């Protein structure tokens, strides 16, 4: 596969975080330290080499950075202080922008202003729509204030209306995510002419289902012991996030009720657990990134922070909304509901297809493709490659 050397590749990658590319002298320490390295995957040294040599096509079809769990073993022992783990993180950000065929995520990664502006514009649109489609507070407020003085939330913002908006948004997001993953498959599997993948091969990786679903399993092999806490909290955060996402998009009629149920009602319990998951996760990641006490929290791109900040405000407004509703403060409930939507929608629309959030969907697929690729290569290879010395 002949390729044109792209000398600007390194400079392009500066925008995605790591800047120490020239530090690397290709000693192979990172590959040897890395627990994801197996014969055939010379990672991360080989990936860094592709960047250094400007092999853009090889880099774009490279799946190895997705195997990285950012345990930081390589960065800690790198003799050149080149931060290979952060390099892999930057390449993952780059790959997210490569898989996004619309090109929007590239713009967001490159410009902080653009990202912030889009978030603000989206918020304003949501606000306007909210004001139009809900009962306007200056109107007949008696309709949505209950007998006990609290807000009748389904009168104020009927779940049917919100659901409609949810589904429109979810539809768009699903379309973007699916097309992006299709593009990813095209780049990694289809475009690689040396791979001959039959239909039946696509089913084979499912025998290793646990590894595919939870990439965090691999953390157990790293030298860094703090990572156990890290991945437990990371998984808790992801699960809570997923639960709330599913409830809001598909079961809003069950979750958003006018009657306030007793404390031990499943609706409230589930909500509380997920809220704790989000809160603890946000606090943990915030402290980690501020104290920079772990390799994977030392360097944060601004897109990482945007996601965390939006998630924080979503959680905060969600909690406030709940408090105001229970304690019967109708006007505040109304405003908080609006604010909640104003941060929730940009968080989903901006982050899911175009930014940090999307690693949640790309990573399992990348692991799936990696296993697929490995199985196909192993099948086609009859004589294993033997290294020759001297």
């Amino acid at each position, binding site marked *: 596969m002949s390729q044109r050397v792209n000398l600007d590749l390194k400079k392009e990658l500066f925008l995605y975080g790591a800047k120490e590319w020239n530090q690397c002298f290709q000693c192979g320490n990172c590959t040897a330290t890395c627990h994801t*390295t197996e014969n055939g995957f010379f990672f991360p*040294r080989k990936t860094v080499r592709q960047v250094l040599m400007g092999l853009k096509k090889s880099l774009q079809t490279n799946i190895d950075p997705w195997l990285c769990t950012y345990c930081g073993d390589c960065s800690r022992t790198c003799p050149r202080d080149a931060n290979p783990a952060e390099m892999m993180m930057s390449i993952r950000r780059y790959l997210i922008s490569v898989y996004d065929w619309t090109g929007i995520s590239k713009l967001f990664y490159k410009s902080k202003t653009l990202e912030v502006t889009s978030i603000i514009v989206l918020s304003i649109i949501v606000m306007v729509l909210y004001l139009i489609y809900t009962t306007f507070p200056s109107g007949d407020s008696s309709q949505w204030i209950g007998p006990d003085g609290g807000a009748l939330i389904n009168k104020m913002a009927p779940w049917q209306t919100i659901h409609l908006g949810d589904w429109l948004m979810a539809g768009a997001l699903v379309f973007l995510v699916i097309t992006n993953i299709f593009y990813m498959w095209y780049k990694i599997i289809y475009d690689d002419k040396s791979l001959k993948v039959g239909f039946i091969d696509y089913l084979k990786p499912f025998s290793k289902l646990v590894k595919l679903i939870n990439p965090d399993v691999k953390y157990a092999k790293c030298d860094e012991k703090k990572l156990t806490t890290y991945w437990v909290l990371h998984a808790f955060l992801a699960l809570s996030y997923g639960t709330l996402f599913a409830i809001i998009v598909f079961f809003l009629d069950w979750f958003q009720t006018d009657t306030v149920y007793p404390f031990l009602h499943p609706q409230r319990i589930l909500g509380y657990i997920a809220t704790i998951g989000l809160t603890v996760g946000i606090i943990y990641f915030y402290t980690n990134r501020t104290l920079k006490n772990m390799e994977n929290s030392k360097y944060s791109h601004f897109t990482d922070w945007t996601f965390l900040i939006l998630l924080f405000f979503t959680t905060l407004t969600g909690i406030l909304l709940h408090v105001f509703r229970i304690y019967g403060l109708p006007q505040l409930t109304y405003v908080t509901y609006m604010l909640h939507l104003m941060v929730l929608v940009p968080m989903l629309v901006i982050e899911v297809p175009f930014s940090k959030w999307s690693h949640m969907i790309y990573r399992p697929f990348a692991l799936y493709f990696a296993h697929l690729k490995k199985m196909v290569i192993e099948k086609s290879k009859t004589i294993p490659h033997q290294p020759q010395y001297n």
Partner: protein
Amino acid sequence: MEGIKTTAVFFSNSSRGDSDLIDIPEIINYTEKLIKVNSVWLQDDINIYSPELVSRKIRKDNIQRIVIAGQNPGMYKSLFAKAIVLAGFSPDDVILASFPEHGALIKSDTEWAKAIVACAVNNIPFENATLTEEISVNPNTLVIGGGIAGIQASLEIAASKNKVYLVEKSGTIGGHMAMFDKTFPTLDCAACILTPKMVEVGQHQYIELMTYSEVKEIRGIPGDYKVKILKKARRMSLSKCIGCGVCAEKCPVKTPSEFDSKTTLRKAAYIPFPQAVPNKYMIDESVCTYVASGKCGICAKVCPVPGCINLDEKDEIVEVNVGNIIVAIGFKTFDASKFEQFGYGRFPNVLTSLELERLINASGPTGGKIARRIQDKKGNWIFSPEEVYSPKSVAIIHCIGSRDENHNKYCSKVCCMYSLKLAHLLKEKLPDSEINEYYIDIRAYGKGYEEFYNRIKEEGVNIIRGRPAKVEMYGNELIVRCEDIEGAAMIEQKVDMVILAVGTEPAADARDIAGKLGISVDRDGWFNELNYIGDPVSTLSSGIMIAGVCQGPKDIPDSVAQASAAASRVLQSISKGTIRKSVKTLSVEQIEKRSQELSKILEEKL
């Protein structure tokens, strides 16, 4: 100011953000106040890729001459030469002011760097502006350090019938070279080269050898130093000891031998090694029970020479007058236990290169047989000369502590070559064994070195490109995990022994000695020379020369050459009878004034 060319000073900020280096903002402040300077340019003001834009700036600021100042000004010379020609002036008007070239390297040299800029602004060579007056010189010389460099320098000076005081910290001269088995690339026996020189030093009538001594204090000026030397108590008379060894035989205290890299034990009454110069026994006061508690004294009872052992001897201070000083204090090896991943100190058969050097040597712990450490009855891991288990495979890992941002950033220069030499010696003694060298880059520079490297490859040593990440121990086996970059494979190699090729570091007391001498060290701790390229043996103090590894990592031939060069500098001043005062006696104002006067004289002549 008619007739004087308008001058701009450009600062290349290669030292930006590094607090150890020269304080550039302070120099910029100073430069702006100089009379002839019209403008000061920083790297941010200049597009260093476009001579056209620079020439436009030259015309805009109405500049006729440019001074480039900084760590590496030569890098920008071609840019400014092109730009100044485009602006219509002569390229001769681009002047370099290199800080390192004139010995300004670290923060404390900031004042010195100012003087370098002042001379360049006045277009006067720094050497001309800093000529100092000559004063008479004392013909005696002090050499600090008794390794190969110190020995060589002493012999060179003593050969011209001038008195040399050779001060050595340990009980014998010889230094690290005495510990080596063979030298590269000729594979000569190191002792065969060194021992005759050591004996010559010991017997030379013009060399006063002071072993087990340290330089306590240095006062005076070049040509007339008064040096106080602390002669530590050997507790055995140098004149009376006959070297019979009865004291060591009976001494009950055992301690690891420094000479054998702590692979064997010696007694508290000991001789560092059989060929030591002076070949006399001594007491190690740090472990001797008599020194600690006043009990024992067996050695004094068994000694056949009456009055030889005086266990109550005290340290004494000797004062000598010298005109010149040669510093050759050498190096220490990197502490391999800083690398936790390689398990040095935890795994018994992970050795440093210096330990292997002793193991290979015929006078080493196993009498020259290559053996693994085994457990004795008490459970200690020892090299046993009786039970020899030869390793079937050995891994040699390069660059331990060198070329590493977390440890020493510099290349230690000798490790590649000595690792290849060790591989050869292992292959010679164990022809059936498998020897693997793991390297990042092989640096086989110099005469006969590349040929030596090729020869080792032909001998069947596996040379593998890739830095191992870790060494693990399972049972008796060590496993080295590494990426073989050229062979495109991951390796998990089972070996019986791992050798860590440790790098060189400045001696532990290098900064201390530099402080006493009033010379500077660089950020790594190596002594600063006056001019790295043109004058690598002199320091800013004209009576003090440096030689050997204390100036920077180097191999034995280079050390010997530098020692001879330092000696020739000393002999130059002795034979002339005079020495220039230290340039450090000049202040920045004096140098600035002098360069102005000189440039005025030159302008009048033109």
